């Protein structure tokens, strides 16, 4: 038919989901990620742990440790938990790692798909609402122990300010003021941030505080991996400002990690 030149979904205006939605397109072609698990499944799959986000003077920063655990086993030592969502937002994941990684990829593609079709980026609020919907659709699996709980942060191009969002397994979306954490070591990291956070942090300070919060979490929580300079395992840190997303390279993180580890009480 005419409206469907490449056989990838029609352009029908009667659809409830907007035509620029990538997930809706995948659903129509039966390609959406699915985890068909019978009730009562008890799987020990890798879980991604502590991630955090905080505001600083130019925008937001996000950081995550590198460990994934399955039960009492350390499943992976170098998992990446902080991702670029699009030019002005970042997403960090905790919970069932395999599902979280797939959802992140889907989220990234969705944002780019929308941007290309509509010729404008989704608003930061729009991104947060969409991510909440993705988390909510995962609720049946969360009930069976396969939860995915992300954090979203970004630079709001219209308000010219950094914003943070946390989520819960039912798709609750909460805009956080100054900092947010999730994952098994999240409460330790939050306790640290409570004492250390100030509104006027600069980039060097925010990097320092984010890493120290992860080190603090790793000291108390066995599922959170501390930095391991000997093996070159450093936390992932990224910032989002008016200039866009920036992933901090290991070379910049390493001296900060050394400094933090030396001065830890």
């Amino acid at each position, binding site marked *: 038919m*005419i*409206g*469907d*030149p*490449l056989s*990838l*979904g029609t*352009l029908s205006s009667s659809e409830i989901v907007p*035509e620029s939605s*990538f997930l809706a*397109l*995948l659903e129509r*072609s039966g*390609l959406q990620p699915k985890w068909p698990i019978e009730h009562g499944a008890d799987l020990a799959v890798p879980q991604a742990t502590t991630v955090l986000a905080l505001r600083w003077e130019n925008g937001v920063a996000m950081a995550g440790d590198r460990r994934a655990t399955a039960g009492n086993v350390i499943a992976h030592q170098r998992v990446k938990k902080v991702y670029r969502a699009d030019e002005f937002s970042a997403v960090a994941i905790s919970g069932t790692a395999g599902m979280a990684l797939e959802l992140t*990829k*889907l989220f990234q*593609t969705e944002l*780019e*798909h929308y941007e*290309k*079709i509509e*010729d404008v980026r989704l608003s930061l609020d729009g991104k947060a609402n969409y991510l909440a919907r993705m988390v909510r659709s995962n609720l049946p699996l969360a009930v069976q122990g396969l939860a995915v709980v992300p954090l979203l942060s970004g630079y709001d191009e219209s308000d010219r300010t950094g914003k943070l969002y946390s989520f819960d397994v039912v798709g609750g979306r909460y805009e956080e003021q100054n900092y947010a954490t999730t994952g098994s070591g999240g409460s330790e990291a939050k306790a640290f941030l409570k004492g250390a956070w100030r509104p006027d942090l600069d980039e060097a300070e925010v990097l320092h505080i984010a890493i120290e919060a992860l080190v603090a979490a790793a000291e108390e929580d066995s599922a959170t991996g501390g930095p391991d300079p000997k093996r070159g395992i450093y936390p992932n840190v990224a910032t989002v400002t008016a200039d866009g997303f920036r992933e901090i390279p290991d070379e910049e993180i390493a001296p900060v990690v050394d400094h933090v580890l030396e001065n830890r009480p």
Partner: protein
Amino acid sequence: MTAQFYVPPEQLIKDRAEFARKGIQRGRPIVVMEYSGGILLIGENSSRSLHKIGEIYDRVAFAAVGRFNEFETLRVAGIRYADVKGFAYARADVTGKGLANAYSQSLGQIFTHEIKPYEVEVIVAELAEGDNHIYHIRFDGTLRDEHGFAVIGGDEAVIRERMVEAYQPDLELGAAMAMATTAIAESSEEDISDDAWEAAALDESLGRRKFRRLDLEEVSAAV
């Protein structure tokens, strides 16, 4: 029972092609050409928001002339095709050739099977270090791999002639813009104002997404 009139297939195809060609000729032309740092896509367009040039994927861009609703459908379908393929396999597996083929199949099918053919002509440009491609797809599905530059819409033959004379590889972006706009302006009967250009580039120097729109200042400085 109503009797069907017999129309010889030659006549049918000729009529359809003539119909589509007329529609496309009315469209303002677009030139796509290689320059030293990538591929330039430039054309006349008085609208700031209804684009004729767009991003499809990391290294793939789209340009079209003709009926807006028809090529917009193709553009969106192209983005869907590319995003689904890149999601299901890997980003590197999305190629200009695959997309050009899909467009060619669709346009060919529509040309013979639908009530009226699409009045559009499409270019798919792909940046691949040292092996750039510019695919030209006609309303009837004819697919051509062009070398150096391609022209669609308007007085295509005249613009092409001028481009053949003037084109040289490895021009700077500004010089390439000046050349393409001159070729288009010379073929046009009306004067084209400086702010009536739409331009974009697949720019080697960018990161993963090579597509960027060129703003008016950049274009008018070169023109």
